[in-house]
């Protein structure tokens, strides 16, 4: 892989830039500064860094209290813990109380590989999306991660962002990052099938479109990093005239991107929607790419599924 820069490292850079300009930007960690690549933030801006120890509920509530006093807190903890152990704090203290807290789930999905289900976050999209006033973002690469964090620094509402642990292949390139907040990015136009993906599976979706070309199947690809608010308009526009919609997500089959896309499509432009996701079971042991390959969520798996259905 050419890219060696993890999305979490980009997050740290953006937050350091923001902290240098605004002393109200505060980062909170739950003994997670190393995992979050935020050690250099803590070293550079110790007055704007709050360590709460291994106490994720406290992490989120303290962030809400800080926000109520005008701070701009980013609470950063493994996605598995911040989204489920702190779920009620995210719901009550952040979203319901309308606090400007940015909840950052690091090492999301199956990033932790062999560490097992305790450390996998395959429920976070469903859980967080079900909270009124909560937004959910899964940037696809390091360039888009920068865009999302820069935009989130401009608003005053709560949001949840999931990013992975390891560097991922670039979807975009320096100087070529089409991005509009809360609008899906069209990565490829096509006439037969629309592939909608989020997070670190966008690259696989994009590559699968290339593989499908060889099979004379024309695939459109959408990067739906904004899972909530889902870009329904962009989705319906891209879905127009397609025979099939495929969704791809590093998540449980329930309540995630696939469910949301299916809701919009079935209500507005009914057609077949097939969801490629992790299983409703503990995930097989392996590195992310091994897991994706096993469940048919890599470029080859996506292309194979499309060809099977359309063939």
């Amino acid at each position, binding site marked *: 892989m050419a890219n060696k820069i993890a999305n979490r490292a980009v997050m740290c850079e953006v937050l350091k830039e923001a902290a240098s300009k605004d002393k109200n930007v*505060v980062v909170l960690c739950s003994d997670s500064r190393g995992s979050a690549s935020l050690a250099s933030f803590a070293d550079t801006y110790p*007055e*704007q860094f*709050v360590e*709460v*120890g291994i*106490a994720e*509920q*406290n992490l989120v*509530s*303290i*962030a*809400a*209290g*800080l*926000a*109520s*006093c*005008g*701070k701009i*807190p980013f609470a950063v903890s493994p996605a598995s813990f911040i989204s489920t152990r702190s779920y*009620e*704090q995210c719901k*009550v*203290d952040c979203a*319901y*109380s*309308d606090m400007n807290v940015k909840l950052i789930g690091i090492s999301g999905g199956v990033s932790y590989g062999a560490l097992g289900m305790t450390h996998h976050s395959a429920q976070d999209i469903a859980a967080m999306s079900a909270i009124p006033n909560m937004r959910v973002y899964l940037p696809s690469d390091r360039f888009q991660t920068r865009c999302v964090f820069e935009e989130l620094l401009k608003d005053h509402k709560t949001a949840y962002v999931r990013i992975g642990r390891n560097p991922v292949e670039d979807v975009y390139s320096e100087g070529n990052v089409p991005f509009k907040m809360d609008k899906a990015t069209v990565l490829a136009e096509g006439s037969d099938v629309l592939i909608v993906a989020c997070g670190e599976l966008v690259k696989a979706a994009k590559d699968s479109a290339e593989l499908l070309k060889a099979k004379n199947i024309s695939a459109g690809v959408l990067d739906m990093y904004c899972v909530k608010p889902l870009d329904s308009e962009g989705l319906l526009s891209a879905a127009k005239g397609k025979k099939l919609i495929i969704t791809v997500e590093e998540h449980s089959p329930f309540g995630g991107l696939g469910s949301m896309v299916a809701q919009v499509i079935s209500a507005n432009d009914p057609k077949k929607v097939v969801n490629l996701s992790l299983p409703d079971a503990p995930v097989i042991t392996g590195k992310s790419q091994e897991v994706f390959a096993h469940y048919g969520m890599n470029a080859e798996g996506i292309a194979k599924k499309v060809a099977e259905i359309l063939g």
Partner: protein
Amino acid sequence: MRKLGNVKKLSATAFDIRRNALDIIMAGGGGHIGGDMSEAEILLTLYERMNVTPETQDSPDRDRFVLSKGHCVETLYAVLSYEGFMKLDEVLAKFSRFGSEYIGHPHNTLPGIEMNSGSLGHGLSVSVGMALAGKMDKKAYRVYTLMGDGELAEGSVWEGAAAAGHYRLDNLCAIVDHNHLQISGNVDEVLSPGDIGARFAASGWNVLKISNGNDIAQISSALDEAEKTKIHPTVIIAETTKGKGSALIENKASWHHKLPTQEEYEKIAADIAAYKEAVLNG
């Protein structure tokens, strides 16, 4: 903090607060009457003394209060009405009604309310965040939170306690409304909180105990001591009487949440009036 006014007069006012809370409960068709009655003097004393008024409620320098035991919102509404943040008539007309913003737990779209609460065990940690922000900005404001004794079973309380001690938040004062009862019965029988003071002290807190948490002079004196305490956050463990104000409901777990019948309402209201009279004649 502001200086406290006439203690005797305020002690009588606490019974007006109770009567108003009772009327709010009747108007809304239910409420947490037992805890409402035990916290009346604590909330009244706080709002009489905190540096926050309807005029300064948006000031970054205001003192903050979080009702962690959010279910006892009726007395908070009564106190906020008395202090001019909201109008009692409006609360009475709207409480718990269809489409109302005056719901059965604190909500920060209402004037004078900092944070939504209702799920127990959140208020202390949120207050820690507020106090930390005050330290970061070198502001003089103080942060107060009121918890129930049953609430202390929530593990998150102790996460908050540890952080407050660690960060030496001497601008934070937690108060425990120690009325010894929760919905299922006696707190010690449901799940003993153990030695509450020792648990806070172990996290670096200054622990104050007051023998009568329904005594405004005792509450105020403890608040003074908390304000003078440096380095350590302070917890005031206030021995209160659940249902205080009427023999019908005092110290009865069954009155944790209950709507009085008309007959009971009249009895409770008469008892509250008698308490007030006794205070004025005392």
